[in-house]
């Protein structure tokens, strides 16, 4: 995939954010979904090993629906980022999750685009975009969050150690 295409795709998604309604990404098995569910620490919910505040951002989070079904939220709306930063403040609370339910036959997953608090019997909270990974990264690193992956120290260290291809000493082919 060409770099320009990815950048324009990301820009399109950012522009459409104003509508507070999820876009389709053309992914097989995707369904644009707006749903209420409780945000839970997956390890706690599945194994019973629970820690304070759903792991404070260090544990994967999922949506627990009223029918007892659990779906992992694996992605937010930032490039190459998960949704933990967007969801951690809603630990064990109900939200309206807006995004894509992807019913892959090997494993169902959710991609989060917008979220708002949805406490039972109370007014719903304000919508916010699921782009807090980039925002937090920007705050912590003082560089634009949109291209965080090009500048992140942990990424640089991993690539320095094993190379772009993951095999020490092996150089990528000219593209």
């Amino acid at each position: 995939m060409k770099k320009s295409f990815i950048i324009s795709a990301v820009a399109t998604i950012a522009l459409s954010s104003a509508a507070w309604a999820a876009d389709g990404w053309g992914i097989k098995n995707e369904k644009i979904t707006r749903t209420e569910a409780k945000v839970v620490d997956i390890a706690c919910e599945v194994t019973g090993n629970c820690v304070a505040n759903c792991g404070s951002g260090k544990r994967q989070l999922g949506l627990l629906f009223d029918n007892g079904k659990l779906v992992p939220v694996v992605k937010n709306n930032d490039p190459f980022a998960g949704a933990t930063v967007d969801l951690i403040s809603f630990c064990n609370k109900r939200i309206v999750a807006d995004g894509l339910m992807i019913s892959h036959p090997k494993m169902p997953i959710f991609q989060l685009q917008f979220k708002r608090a949805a406490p039972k019997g109370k007014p719903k909270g304000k919508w916010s975009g699921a782009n807090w990974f980039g925002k937090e990264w920007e705050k912590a690193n003082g560089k634009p969050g949109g291209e965080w992956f090009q500048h992140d120290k942990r990424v640089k260290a991993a690539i320095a150690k094993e190379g772009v291809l993951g095999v020490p000493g092996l150089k990528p082919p000219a593209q």
Partner: protein
Amino acid sequence: MHKKLIAVAVALGIGVWGFAAEAATPKRVKVSGEIIDTWCYLTEIMFAEGSAHHKCAIWCAVGGVPVSIKGKDGKIYMVLRVEGDDTSVANPKIVSIQSHEVTVDGDLYVRDGVNYLLVNKVADDKGVINLTHKKHGVVPF
């Protein structure tokens, strides 16, 4: 469970499976396969395996997307713990073995169509074996 009780539960629309899920006990398993980025692999957005996709898989792992093992049995196992460290968001050990071919011992929980794996030990780490860059270059860019 008594047959009559099941019949009543079914009639009332109560999920009989619910009872079993409450008392989830893990299964001891040995899983061999490739460490992959869950998102790129399942969405089939790009070629998401091996050396071609290694850089992207590092980005996603550091970005906090769950990391999984694509088992030789064809199943996807989402990793929730690695060797005593039960963090699963940008876990440094997992980042360090991204795209590698591994064999792990772990505890498996299956819930709502997802295989959740708690890795007790990375028993074998062969490094990156799947040299997909020969065919695909580096994906993306």
